[in-house]
């Protein structure tokens, strides 16, 4: 039974449909209607459903969010500086509250071979262009948040490359949630032509009162209400295409963020995803990859930082449907306070997918006794000539490593920070865009400074003087390790 009442969404959907019925093509309306029917039938998920066992979305379901009206709420482009990474001649398409903001975007000097347009623009000028793809990859039948996005999405980014084009500059898609109390439905469609090569950066940022990423000068933050982002990206690679996708989530720490990235790889194409999650009170990211052609190769890297009472849930599905495909997945988490994280990594190897080579790793660093991770590898293998490995570790900062640094004169807090950065650097170091890598290192440091408060209980006994006297220590590393090679 759906837990909640979806009435406010029904009202909004009907109102929105009246407004856009005249403009949109019939095929699109048909998808939207079907998607919304699925959403009302499914309702918001509950923790009784396996895929949502550890993530209770009732704080989202129980709240009424207003449909984001327009791209206002930002005083000007200078307020976005904190979310841009320094790249010469940036290519940026900016959305505020889910709506295209041309004045904030930089689309004048696009590299040859790529088009970057707003979804609203494509739907009004050239809608048939995306018929084969829009809403066809991200399945909404069983995924209520995908259904909700598909029903409501009116705007977003459509990026398309011509065959053989090598796009030399990253395409930055920036979604800004500038007002509390609103829901936005960012939508991204990437169509990478045959043998094309490109880098996409998706940023989801939020600015609100008391938000730790808040900046002076941004209007529309006074409501004190959290925002809700329900995003869907569909990424379609042609034969031999190479796509690197970076996803940076820096919304306010009281916001709600749910996303699905759906990827389809054709013959001999290569896709890498690098997902960074910093903000949000409840964050759920699904990444679903279909290896639909022989010789495809997929890399999923991720890093999530959470403190306070943040919850970050990552579900990935890699569907090896064809032979000779590889998948490499490394997700790392750093959790402090009472933060919780969920990692569910499913690898499906279908009967035809011989010679599959799949490797999955999830490592979590717990900085407090109250932080918690539920990690679950899920391998379903129906072919017999495959290599699949998975491993998960959960641990604290190594007491030996901390002591080694201290014994060289480095104070405890700095030593902890060095070790945490080293842990995270394994993922940030894989970012191929230099300016973005530096940007992320910087965000990481500043986020750690706000989240991490390494106070520890004393380990010395009252009547004895600890040899290490001082402030006592983190407990010894206590790894719980699972390694399996079927």
């Amino acid at each position, binding site marked *: 039974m759906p837990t909640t009442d979806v009435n406010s969404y029904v009202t909004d959907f009907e109102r929105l449909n009246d407004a856009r019925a005249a403009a949109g093509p019939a095929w699109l309306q048909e998808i939207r209607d079907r998607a919304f029917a699925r959403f009302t039938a499914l309702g918001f998920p509950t923790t009784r459903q396996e895929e949502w066992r550890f993530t209770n979305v009732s704080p989202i379901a129980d709240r009424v969010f207003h449909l984001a009206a327009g791209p206002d709420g930002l005083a000007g482009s200078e307020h976005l500086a904190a979310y841009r990474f320094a790249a010469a001649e940036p290519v940026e398409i900016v959305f505020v509250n889910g709506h295209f903001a041309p004045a904030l975007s930089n689309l004048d000097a696009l590299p040859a071979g790529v088009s970057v347009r707003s979804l609203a623009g494509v739907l009004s000028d050239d809608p048939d262009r995306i018929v084969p793809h829009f809403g066809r990859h991200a399945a909404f039948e069983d995924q209520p948040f995908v259904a909700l996005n598909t029903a409501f999405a009116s705007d977003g980014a459509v990026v398309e490359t011509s065959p053989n084009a090598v796009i030399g500059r990253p395409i930055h898609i920036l979604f800004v949630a500038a007002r509390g109390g609103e829901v936005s439905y960012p939508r991204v469609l990437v169509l990478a032509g045959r043998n094309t090569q490109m880098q996409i950066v998706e940023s989801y940022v939020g600015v609100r009162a008391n938000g730790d990423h808040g900046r002076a000068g941004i209007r529309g933050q006074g409501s004190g209400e959290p925002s809700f982002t329900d995003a869907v990206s569909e990424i379609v690679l042609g034969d031999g295409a190479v796509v690197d996708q970076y996803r940076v989530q820096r919304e306010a720490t009281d916001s709600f963020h749910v996303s699905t990235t759906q990827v389809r790889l054709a013959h001999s194409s290569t896709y890498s995803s690098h997902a960074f999650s910093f903000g949000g009170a409840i964050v759920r990211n699904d990444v679903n990859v279909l290896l639909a052609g022989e010789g495809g190769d997929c890399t999923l890297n991720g890093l999530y930082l959470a403190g306070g009472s943040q919850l970050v849930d990552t579900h990935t599905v890699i569907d090896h449907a064809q032979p000779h495909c590889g998948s490499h997945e490394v997700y790392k988490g750093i959790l402090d306070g009472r933060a919780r994280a969920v990692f569910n990594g499913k690898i499906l190897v279908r009967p035809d997918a011989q010679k599959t080579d799949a490797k999955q790793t999830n490592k979590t660093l717990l900085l407090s006794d109250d932080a918690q991770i539920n990690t679950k590898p899920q391998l379903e293998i129906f072919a017999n000539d495959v290599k699949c490995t998975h491993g998960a570790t959960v641990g604290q900062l190594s007491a030996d490593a901390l002591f080694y640094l201290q*014994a*060289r004169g480095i104070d405890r807090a700095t030593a902890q920070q060095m070790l945490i950065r080293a842990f995270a650097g394994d993922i940030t170091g894989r970012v191929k865009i230099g300016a973005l890598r530096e940007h992320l290192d910087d965000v990481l440091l500043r986020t750690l400074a706000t989240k991490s408060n390494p106070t520890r209980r004393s380990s010395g*006994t009252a009547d004895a003087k600890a*040899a290490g006297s001082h402030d*006592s220590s983190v407990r010894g590393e206590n790894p719980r390790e699972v390694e399996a090679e079927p």
Partner: protein
Amino acid sequence: MLEITNLHARVGEGPSTGARGALSAVGGREILKGIDLKVGTGEVHAIMGPNGSGKSTLAGVLAGRSEYVVTAGSVLYEGKDLLAMAPEDRAREGVFLAFQYPVELPGVNNAYFLKAALNAVRRHRGEEELDAIDFMALVRDRMKLLEIDPSMLNRPVNEGFSGGEKKRNEIFQMAVLEPRLAILDETDSGLDIDALKIVASGVNALRSPERSTIVVTHYQRLLNYIVPDYVHVLSEGRIVKSGGKELALELEEKGYGWLEQEEVGR
């Protein structure tokens, strides 16, 4: 410069910490049972003894390992209460422990680590921090001393290093940090003779009238290359015999059993 009086220590409660797991098996048992030792400025003292005699515990207690609990006694270092200091403060005051098992720090760049350490020490001494250029000049100079491959600087600290490389890296760090009291904890263990000579010549090059050294070792071999002023034999948590460098040779010849019998006979 260092005065240890009636030092008693045991392993504290709590989970083991990996490399020292062997010790935690005897958790709670007293390991040091009244150590008295004076080390003068510029002197080299060797501490020898069989496995389990407390050699590494003594080194660990001096450096501030938190799994050891001092139950009695005192340690004065240049007139200050060493045991009251945090490990990083001991290091900044000039105490250096060359680890028996140097710790691997994946993802921590060696040069970055060493620069952070050196500048922490320099700040404490009231000296100006070194910039990248001066730091590199110093480091290059010291690398030659230990015959260290410059590519090592850009690798993560100790990760993937051979046993010999790790030990050389310890002495290299010592050469950069220029401590006043160096404690070498079984720096010779696991080294072949060539690596041993390199490490020993590095240590000898750093000998000076201002620097005191405690060489903890199981075997006399190292002392052929680092010749001590004094030799102490540790057994069952106590120093049971002290003498000059010739004591090491005597031990090599007769083994530790001889002393233990002598101890029982007393």
